């Protein structure tokens, strides 16, 4: 056991962790923050995405002991956050979730996209999303939701494809 001190959702925490425990297990099992879902535990699916020191990160391939001194924010920690509130509303309006399992990780990634890359075109949004797998939605609603939030914040996603047009720039 190693003692770590970190901030989780704005709260200072001191905890004993085993060296082999990854951050997601630490949060889910020891902190009872089960909003972070696990889809693969080998860093591919993105379901476990949360924020470490303000940037999206995969909690399944991050050891808890490496988070000593870090500030971690999970899906439970975005209460008063305006971009997240807008994304949540847009996800529902655009049917960007079905089973909801990928959703917490997807929202954290989506929030990063709308803040870091306002106004980028759809193909860039899709590239940025490529580390988050969703088996239910086919990504259509997720992409639309992100574009909608960009549009609301006055930075509409760049020229791209409304869903009624051929989707690739190479279309005739």
């Amino acid at each position, binding site marked *: 056991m190693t003692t770590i001190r970190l901030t989780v959702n704005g709260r200072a925490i001191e905890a004993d962790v085993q060296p082999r425990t990854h951050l997601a297990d630490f949060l889910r099992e020891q902190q009872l923050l089960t909003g972070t879902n696990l889809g693969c535990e080998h860093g591919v699916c993105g379901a476990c995405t949360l924020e470490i020191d303000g940037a999206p990160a995969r909690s399944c391939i991050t050891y808890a002991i490496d988070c000593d001194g870090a500030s971690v924010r999970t899906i439970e920690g975005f209460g008063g956050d305006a971009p997240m509130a807008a994304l949540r509303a847009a996800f529902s309006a655009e049917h960007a979730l079905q089973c909801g399992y990928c959703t917490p990780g997807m929202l954290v990634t989506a929030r990063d996209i709308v803040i870091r890359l306002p106004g980028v075109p759809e193909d860039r949004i899709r590239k940025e999303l490529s580390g988050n797998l969703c088996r239910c939605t086919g990504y259509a609603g997720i992409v639309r939701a992100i574009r909608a939030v960009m549009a609301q914040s006055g930075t509409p996603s760049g020229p791209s494809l409304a*869903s009624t047009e051929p989707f690739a720039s190479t*279309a005739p």
Partner: protein
Amino acid sequence: MTPILPAYSLMDHDIARARPLPTTGVGASLQRKEDRRFLAGEGEFVGNIKLPGMLHVAFARSAVAHGRILAVHKPAGFEDAVFTMADLEAGSPPVGPIRVLSSLPGFKPSSQWPLARDKVRQVGEPIAMCVAASRAEAEDIADAVVADIEDLPAVVDMLEARDAPPALVHEEWGDNIFLETLVEGGLKGDAFEALKRGAAVKVHRRLRTARQSMAPMEGRGVVCSWNTRLDQLEMHTAAQMPHINRAGLSETLGIDQASIRVIAPDVGGGFGYKGILLPEEICLAWLTRHIGRPVKWIEDRREQLIANTNCREHHYDITVYADARGRLLAIDCDSVIDSGAYSSYPFSACLEAAQVGSILPGPYKMEAFRCRTWSVSTNKPPILPYRGVARAGVCFAIETMVDAAARAAGVEPHEARLASLIEADEMPYDNITRKHFDSGDYPEAIRRAMQAIDLPRWRARQGAAEPDGRLIGVGHAVFCEQAAHGTSVYYGWGIPMVPGHEQCGARMTPDGRLELRIGAQSHGQSLETTLAQVANEILGIDPDHVRLVHGDTGMTPYSTGTWGSRSMVMSGGAVAEACALMVERVRDIAAHLFQVPLDQVMLAQGRVSDRAGGHSLTLAELAHVWYRQPQRLPPGVNPAGLEVIGGYKARVDTGTFSYACHAVAVAVDPGTGAVELLDYVIVEDAGTLVNPMVVDGQIYGGTAQGIGTALFEEMRYDSQGQPLASTLADYMLPGATEVPAPRIIHMETPSPYTTFGQKGMGEGGAIAPGAAIANAVNDALRPLGAELTELPMSPRRVMAAIAASRAGGVIGSPHAAKGQAA
């Protein structure tokens, strides 16, 4: 039972139409009631459940595909924490094997012991169950379990398994064949032979579709405990069919069904993967009672990919006959399905082949049909019905063959299809395998798809060389999606689980809210919303005032569960019946309360009133009187009150037929084999759409999975039966950059047989992409004389097909006939 609602017309009732606001009832794109908890990160997935004193389980699993178990050694010091089949059999009653029989003659059953006994028949088969205070410690113990296994040759390829088996998966059978079937229709014998001789066009291919993993984002998982007060097993499990899991647990554990409660909490996607009784469920059910502690097992992704069920592995040796215009005359096919090591509960090892034999004709008319199928056992995980089930493979087979026939006839593929499809004015139509098509206009779907994809523009573009050297192709595929199969269909297929009548329990609470209890389970299908829309349509109640209870055998009527795109038809029908009964109860109470004749009482927009206008109550006010102020009610009021069970069975139970045409344009890079989707159009007809937003979501999601089938997803095995994809880095799920947003165009031809005219449609998106994209890719490769005959069309397969055509004009990829290679 006579349905209360013979068809969608409340006008049949002596009540005013409970006309909803257009934003809430059937047909509204209502935002989902279930979203809030998932957006907040508050979904209750099985992995989130913790019980006091709970222990964790990990399984020691077979490292080899086929072998005889000589001994299993429990690690020293952990004898009490490790359990083998011998321990489970020593209990009273002893735990038995999973045995799932098809009722079709000649079927050979398998015995799948929850923990391997005598033999292992696939990599990952559980051998020992290990329990500890944490999952990590349980895995440590599992790693220390040693199994002495005498290797046997692995049966890996399905054709080899049938024709030249290196071993027998189940020795007592004498071969490796679960079941062989023959389906014939139309001309037979000499007449069929004469047709074959006279046909202007004859095309023959060997086609293969890869084994896949269904890969919902959440895997399986079980948390269970023994409730000593109720003397009842309480199991939370990520499952699509909890009542079926209960039945299977009862059969294998030897305890009665009332002693078992199965709860499927929030479930992170199913797609068929969670429609099974798991060996792990049986093990944990035994364990919690044996050790007197709650226990938990959560499947990890490696377990899922290595050990647990797969889907979709088909081989077709198929010949299609057509006339000079490409009109279909006959199909003659031998099909082999790799069913894996065991027959799974409840769908059996034969559902896939049963579907192949009966639905291969698709929506086409023809004069003769013959299909022989073999469900073959190999040393690989069992297969389960994945979204679309056999339809995806069947659609690939028939639709690539129709294109091949059109090429041979020198006509555009859509012309060949239009010449062969069932016409709208022939509906309802019984086809050559006696499938009963309920309604629809298939040719119109193709015409609209051709218009939307703009075929002439792509043909023009093909005429000019692309600046980047890529080859342009355009293709399409049409299919029918029989859904909400009823009793006769499953009985006829020999499946041991036969769906019958569906019920809904409805209760109005004392404050006028509505509780609906259904035995199906919603895990992304949005039933909490869409069934509230149905209630709104009938009762006028605000959907926000409707609460759906589902997925809990302790709370809900029996149901075979959520599979086969059946919930909106079956549960939707049952909810409508229950709500119609509730309308009658509400009116009866109101008539007594108002002291007016029953026919003077009407219910509209959530208010009950008398026609003269003297009285009016909200549902909440009426419920309050019923429950809290019964002194106000005169004698004679129906004492059954505001709690009802409504039951539903479609008037014609052969299922609804949704259909669609997918049209796609691609660019194929002949230097790398990469395929890019340039445009994708779906013309879909699912009858009356209860919630168009949800329907589109199902189409988008299904199509994404179908694109995975077409281009990326493949469970490969080496010659020893070792799985070659054990992580999501090896098993390629399509991401946001691989999946375009298709353009969806709806047609809405109601089913004449369902409550609102709705048709099951949850699987359709996944059916056609393999076929449509293959046709487009083959269209692109035509100038090179190359043709793809296998899915997925990975870059390696595309390059192999090009190389083969250059080497000697061989049609088809070199691996089409045999082998796992890609």
